[in-house]
């Protein structure tokens, strides 16, 4: 076969490499087995502090609309089926099927035992230092279907 050449620029393709979910899961499982469950949570809190610093600041400054914009962005990009309802004091996200778990299961990637922490730990830590808190009201580990609630903390 003659020499072949493929030339691409960044503009030629959208940035959406879903196999990264499998790599993320691999990393979570590795940490879990090597250092234990608390290491997974500690790592995810550090990731949140580092990567989500601008979002944490926006949540403190603008409240839930900042979070809604972020969540819409990632779930839209992933092609998820979800509903988001918001008031001044509460944001509820209902995800019919986690797009990460869906991709991993359909492509034969193992789903880490503590995959749920990429939602529970990250979003709970995102809220620390703000007027809001987070609870994962429902979660199906098989599909990742979930009900996620961000709510304004009660002040005594």
């Amino acid at each position, binding site marked *: 076969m003659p020499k072949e050449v493929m030339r691409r620029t960044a503009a030629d393709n959208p*940035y959406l490499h879903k196999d990264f979910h499998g790599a*993320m899961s691999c990393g979570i499982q590795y940490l879990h087995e090597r250092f234990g469950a608390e290491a997974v949570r500690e790592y995810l809190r550090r990731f949140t502090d580092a990567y989500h610093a601008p979002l944490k600041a926006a949540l403190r400054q603008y409240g839930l609309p900042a979070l809604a914009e972020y969540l819409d962005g990632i779930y839209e990009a992933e092609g998820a089926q979800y509903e988001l309802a918001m008031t001044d004091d509460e944001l509820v996200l209902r995800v019919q099927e986690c797009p990460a778990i869906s991709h991993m299961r359909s492509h034969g990637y193992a789903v880490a035992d503590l995959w749920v922490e990429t939602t529970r730990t990250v979003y709970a830590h995102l809220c620390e230092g703000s007027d809001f808190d987070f609870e994962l009201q429902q979660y199906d580990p098989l599909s990742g279907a979930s009900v996620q609630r961000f709510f304004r903390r009660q002040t005594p």
Partner: protein
Amino acid sequence: MISCTEFIPAYSELFRYLEERGGKQEVVAYWEYISDSFLHNLRQLVAEHGLRGCWMYWSHTLNEEAADFTMEIDDEAGEFRITMHQCPSRGLLNALEHMEPYHDYCGHCDVLYRRILEPMGFECFSDHSECDQARCVLIVRSHRHDTPSMG
């Protein structure tokens, strides 16, 4: 959920976390683990198609990652080459003003792919001298030749 569009910063922070836990050797051990346990598709494609398996593997990943690259394969010469003009992963990290990339972020590529390809009889050459500017070169050769030109 951590979106797949957020994976690269998460990956970089994982390297940093592992290094804090156990030094650079802990990071390299993790890279070897990923290579052994996650990159089955590269191993399988190369086992079935030889050097062309590299072309097939990276055709998929580099396009999905929206990379700016030139990829070449010369079956007669037994050479596969990726010239990365703008690595999407390193480029993304460089663009995040509030985060520092892990100091040897790009080191994982060399470990991951060399560990698969060399035991299968290929030689790997990489030039990471400009990786902090998101540029690098990977060359895979199917049999022994003189060291290839990186230019």
